[in-house]
Structures are given as structure tokens and as C-alpha cells.
């Protein structure tokens, strides 16, 4: 039904699971997301949308102007790196091979399998839930960037802003897409902690098929 990056290979053999471009952009993205989130929380604290603020110790920039400087510097890293990653994913066929096809049926089946404790975890191949999570996080980063553009330039990008409910609406979109990204990161890291053998391949790109 699906083809993994590795194609068909015998048990015990070492296969390439993560292309070099994906590995490089992944780790740059880790740094970029960290800087964007930590400085963004500091900016949020200057005028909270909700009745809470982020603890200062986990924010970046020291004060509002410093946080804004970090945010508007790191945005180039996030967007530049993200564009390289998406362009590579589309052109190389990485997305098509790794994330597609995805169907409601396959998602429901994967969900049922999870409940029964038999969700498949083939090396070099993503199950339907993983596919949805990875496509979803790409969509969320695109949304956080678009809403960020509207907040940064509500006059120049007012057509895009109108789709999000003007400047105040874009702030909400920006906040909730940030929250979705942070939620993804937490789950993602917990998953790696639960299955530590997935960590090293994200650096080396190689994994051994279980015997």
C-alpha cells in the first residue's frame, strides 16, 4: 500500500530514513522555533490576550524591545529554512513518498489500532497518525507565519488580514497556531523519549531494520 523512503530491504540492513536536507532543516528549525516561541511569549506578556502571562524565565529578550529584536531576526531563519524544507519536500518527492496517501479510512484504522495497542511502527515508514501530525505541523507553521505577517503589517497585508478578522483576529490566530506548534513539539519530544532509537537517525539519517 505504501512505500517507505527505504523501499524494500531485508531485516537487519541499514537504510536511509531521513534525507540530509530534512535533517539539516529540522535542526535549524528547532533553533528557530525555540527563539520565536521564547521571544514571542515575552511580546505576549506586554499585552496578554488571556488572563495569564508566560513565566519570565522561559522567555527571551529581557524586555519588550529585546524580545521584538529576537523575534524579527529569528523570523528570517524560520521562514528561510522553512521555504528550503518545503521546496525540497515537494520537488524531491519526499512529501509524496513519506506523507501520502493519507485518507480518513487509514486514519480511523490507525486510531483503532492505537486503542488496541497494535499501531504499526515500521522503520522508514510513517503510519497514518504520524502522516497527519507531520502534515498538520507544516500547516500550522504556515499559519503562524501568515498570521505573523498580518500582525507585523496589518495595512500592507490587509487583504490577508481580512480573512483572519483584521488585526485583533490575526493575534488570536497567531496565538493558537503557536499553541498548536508547542503542543506538537511536546508530543514529538515525548514520543522520542518513549522510542529513543528514533533520535540518532535524525542526526545520521540511517536506521537499522529490526531483525
Amino acid at each position: 500500500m505504501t512505500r517507505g523512503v527505504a523501499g524494500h530491504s531485508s531485516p537487519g540492513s541499514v537504510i536511509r530514513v531521513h534525507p540530509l536536507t530534512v535533517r539539516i532543516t529540522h535542526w535549524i528549525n528547532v533553533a528557530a522555533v525555540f527563539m520565536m516561541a521564547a521571544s514571542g511569549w515575552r511580546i505576549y506578556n506586554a499585552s496578554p490576550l488571556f488572563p495569564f502571562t508566560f513565566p519570565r524565565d522561559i522567555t527571551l529578550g529581557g524586555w519588550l524591545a529585546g524580545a521584538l529584536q529576537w523575534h524579527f531576526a529569528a523570523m528570517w531563519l524560520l521562514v528561510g529554512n522553512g521555504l528550503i524544507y518545503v521546496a525540497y519536500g515537494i520537488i524531491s518527492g519526499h512529501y509524496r513518498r513519506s506523507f501520502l496517501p493519507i485518507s480518513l479510512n487509514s486514519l480511523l484504522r490507525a486510531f483503532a489500532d492505537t486503542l488496541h495497542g497494535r499501531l504499526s511502527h515500521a522503520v522508514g515508514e510513517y503510519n497514518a497518525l504520524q502522516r497527519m501530525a507531520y502534515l498538520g505541523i507544516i500547516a500550522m507553521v504556515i499559519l503562524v507565519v501568515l498570521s505573523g505577517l498580518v500582525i507585523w503589517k496589518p495595512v500592507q497585508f490587509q487583504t490577508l488580514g481580512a480573512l483572519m478578522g483584521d488585526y485583533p483576529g490575526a493575534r488570536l490566530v497567531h496565538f493558537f497556531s503557536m499553541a498548536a506548534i508547542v503542543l506538537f513539539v511536546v508530543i514529538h519530544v515525548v514520543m522520542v523519549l518513549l522510542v529513543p532509537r528514533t533520535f540518532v537517525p535524525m542526526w545520521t539519517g540511517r536506521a537499522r531494520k529490526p531483525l
Partner: protein
Amino acid sequence: MKRRPGIEANPVECTRQEIRFLERRLLLKGALSVGALSLLSGCDITDEETVHKVLWNMSRWNDRVQMALFDPRRLAPTYAESAVTRPFPFNAYYRESEAPVVDGDSFRLELSGLIRDRRPWSLAELNSLPQATQITRHVCVEGWSAIGKWSGVPFRTFLERVGADLNASYVGFKCADDYYTSIDMATALHPQTQLTLRFEDRTLPRSYGFPMKLRIPTKLGFKNPKHIMAIYVTNVYPGGYWEDKGYNWFAGL
């Protein structure tokens, strides 16, 4: 969402915070050392000064990007009278009760720099110039926004009337509360940039900048100086009160 400028905005407070958070930021940078900073700056991550320099340079770069993004003919959205935020928030680096008191009768707006006719202007003279009204959104650098109704002289009309050098780079403002800021000429000539004399059809109240403010719906709130006493045109970068402390200079919307 009442904002006392105190915590985030008070300059003395900021300096104290800076010191207080220096240690923390060094810690954070330690956590960032996984290539993040070196990728961003290509320099020694242990050097606090270098990090600051990189961030400032990125802010200057963002000035240029914003100048390119700025469309001098694109208008900021305007709103219905019913959308006006009431009460409109007061915002400054001091409390509302500390807003400067300016005597309107003796007030004379001073002009200097690259301007042909530099004679001072009284409020009556300014009121006799063509007037325009706008209902636009004021966006604060802190994130909040509010819709207000401002009336006054289109700034372009005023600059043309006094024979300002419209090819100069900057227009600078000095205010009665020791605030100062400056804007690019393209924004100064934008059709909605306004030398504001009235708020909600009444004489501009003291809290909102009597005797006059500059209303720029294409820039963040701190680029809208209140209590303007002097205007000058120059090709030398004049900076600004918050800009010199680290806020982005162009700050366009």
C-alpha cells in the same frame, strides 16, 4: 487590558530589568548554543555585545525591508463611527496626570531644517488650513490596538505649504514631554498621515497630545508623537526616544 507604561515601558525600569535579566539571558544563550546563535550570527556566542550588535543590525535590515514593502498609496483600513474604542486608552512613558500642560494661546509650532518658510505657526493658523478626518486603528508595539477618530491637517498639505524639501530623508519631531521621534519622508507624505488637532470632533485633549499630534495609521503607536512643539526636515538620521532604546525605527504597519 489597562496598560500602565510602568513595567514594560519605563526606561529606568527597563535598565534595571536589563541588569536583572543579564544572568538569565546568558543562561538562555547557553541553552541556545546548539548552533542556533552561531547560525544566526556567525560569531562567538559567548559575546553578549556581538549578539546585541547582530540584533541591532537585523533591525536596520528590517527597516530597509519595510521601506520596500511600504506602498505609499495603500490606505489603512477605515472604520465606522460605531467602531471607535471608548474610552480610548491613554499611553505614554508616564502617568496620565503627568501629561504636559501646553498653553494653546501662546503656542507656536517651530520649524527648522530643510524647510523654506520656517516662521512659527499658531494654532489658529493651523486650524485655518484644509482639514480631514479619519477613523483608523492605532496599533501599539505592545500588541493591543484601539480605533479612534482624529481630525487635522493632512501632513503632506502642511509640508508643501511650508516648502519642506520633499526629497529629504527624514522628518523629525520634538515634543513638550521630551519625547522625540522621526519618520521617513514617504510615510510623511502618505495621504492619511495627519497633523492632528482634534479627537472625536473636539479640541485634542491634553491626554491625547494637546496642542497637536502626528497621526500615522501606517505606523505603530510610538511613531505617533504627541504634544509636538517642533518639526524639522533632515537627511541625518534623527532616531527617537524608544528607537534609541531598541524599538525598530521604521515600525510600519
